[in-house]
């Protein structure tokens, strides 16, 4: 077969593959068709990889096969992690994607270096800088999510200045390379500085901001793949990168809106620094606490219950006990719904996946805009491991750092129950006035244990 015809056939295979990729995302619009989407994506990927393996440019298959086998051996366990580990796995996969894109860009630079045009150099530099910083940034994010690194923001004076100087250095080297593409000794320096910038970019960001950061890194990983498509003039990479990039971008916008914050504020604001001043003005306030027995009695007398899960439920691995509670209440004829804030947990959709894993049917999971009008008709709002997303200060207290953030309006329910380990303020260090309201009952304890106790009261008390 002549080379031109072969190249055309490969291009046709790529075209079919990208069409399948778009269909894959389209079918993800509803849980009913979503699995077809995965199948479409798989067929597209297999088609594109098979077509590429037939390319006449390939003269040596040994290392390709070894690398594919290694990739599969690493990939399968990463596809089988427990659902609680999905946020860190996602961050790790952003890192792998960005690493691959950066390495290919670096290889391309050294292959082409004597005859690089300015256009090539701009594309390669942009691609390698974004790929490298996404690689280290995602590794740091994964470390924080796995709690190898502290989740709190790590900050110091002049941090933004240092970080931005490092970025400026990478851009200056890129600019120098643009006019002297042959200065190949500077190229590794540019890569190194970009890697450092990735670390500096994510280190100051706290755990509560991870949903936004993961989405943003997703967007960067997509952008680096698309830029690689520009470098290699490969349209399948451009399309896949653009799809991934727009997906990450849309998710970051949703996350930012759900926290009423801007991108720059998330990246450079170091949210979650301890508020020292507000603590001093606090006076002694009383809280009402209740036992599992009392909580069970109140729940059993309710008609409508809304459960609001948060990161605390994930930490305590309480989702299966929560499902048992859901079953016990549903059996008594009580209407149980789940209200899920967009930034609950550590990544977009985190709570939905955990609850689906525990067999909670997805038609019982409601997003913020749907559930908020229902709280006034709700007898009991049960908050499990969520804090800031239920804080009424976001609507009333202009001085609060979370003022303006849309919240789940649990304070409109007739009774609010909050399962919490102690009265310590949440991650962001912001006091929650909800806990001191008369209608609020604090259920102090570990989420898993406490929900288990309530379930025992509910099911055991029937005889």
């Amino acid at each position, binding site marked *: 077969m002549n080379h031109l015809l072969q190249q055309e056939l490969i291009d046709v295979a790529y075209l079919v593959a990208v069409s399948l990729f778009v269909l894959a995302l389209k079918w993800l619009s509803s849980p009913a068709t979503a699995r077809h989407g995965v199948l479409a994506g798989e067929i597209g990927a297999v088609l594109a990889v098979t077509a590429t393996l037939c390319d006449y440019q390939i003269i040596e298959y040994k290392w*390709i096969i070894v690398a594919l086998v290694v990739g599969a051996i690493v990939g399968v366990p990463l596809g089988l992690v427990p659902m609680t580990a999905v946020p860190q796995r996602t961050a790790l996969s952003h890192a792998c994607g960005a690493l691959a894109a950066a390495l290919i860009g670096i290889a391309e630079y050294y292959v082409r270096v004597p005859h690089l045009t300015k256009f090539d150099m701009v594309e390669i530099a942009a691609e390698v800088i974004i790929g490298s910083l996404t690689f280290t940034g995602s590794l740091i994010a994964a470390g924080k999510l796995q709690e190898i690194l502290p989740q709190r923001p790590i900050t110091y004076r002049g941090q933004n200045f240092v970080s931005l100087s490092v970025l400026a250095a990478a851009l200056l080297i890129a600019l120098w390379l643009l006019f002297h593409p042959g200065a190949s000794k500077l190229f590794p320096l540019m890569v190194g500085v970009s890697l450092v910038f990735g670390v500096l970019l994510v280190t100051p960001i706290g755990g509560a901001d991870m949903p936004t950061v993961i989405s943003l890194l997703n967007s960067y990983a997509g952008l680096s793949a698309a830029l690689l498509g520009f470098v290699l003039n490969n349209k399948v990479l451009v399309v896949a990168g653009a799809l991934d990039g727009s997906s990450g971008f849309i998710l970051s916008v949703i996350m930012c809106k759900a926290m009423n914050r801007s991108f720059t504020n998330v990246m450079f604001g170091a949210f979650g620094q301890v508020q020292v001043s507000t603590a001093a003005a606090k006076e002694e306030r009383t809280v009402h606490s209740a036992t599992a027995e009392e909580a069970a009695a109140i729940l059993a007398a309710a008609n409508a219950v809304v459960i609001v899960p948060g990161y605390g439920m994930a930490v305590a691995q309480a989702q299966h006990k929560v499902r048992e509670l859901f079953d016990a209440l549903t059996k008594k004829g009580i209407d149980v719904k789940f209200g899920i804030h967009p930034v609950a947990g550590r990544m977009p959709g985190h709570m939905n996946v955990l609850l689906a894993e525990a067999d909670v049917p997805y038609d019982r999971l409601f997003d913020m805009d749907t559930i908020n009008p229902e709280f006034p008709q709700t007898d009991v709002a049960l908050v499990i491991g969520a804090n800031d997303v239920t804080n009424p200060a976001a609507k009333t207290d202009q001085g609060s750092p979370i003022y303006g953030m849309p919240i789940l309006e649990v304070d409109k329910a007739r009774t609010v129950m909050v399962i919490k380990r102690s009265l310590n303020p949440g991650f962001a260090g912001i006091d929650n006035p909800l806990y001191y309201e008369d209608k609020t009952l604090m259920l102090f304890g570990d989420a898993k244990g406490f929900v288990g106790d309530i379930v025992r009261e509910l099911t055991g008390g029937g005889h």
Partner: protein
Amino acid sequence: MTFDLINCLYVFVLAGFIGFEVIRRVSPLLHTPLMSLTNALDAIVVVAAIIIAGRHDSTLSTVLGAVAIAAAFSNMVGGFLITDRMLRMFKLSRSKKP
């Protein structure tokens, strides 16, 4: 060369618009599987890595290409696998007859 650039920009911009319209419609329920699926699709950079590693321009490019294949392919395999596992868990409530 600039012709290629314009070409790619066309594709990029149009794909971006399609991505925006399609992904806007994805239910918030499925935002986690969305992210793992787009990651798996993004791992298509493996095709570029295969060419680099197989073309055998230099030892350096072969090594970088091979590492890139492993990184991207692990993403592809793992991404599709976990997305499917997650989606299998999303069930409607069974209409239980008492």
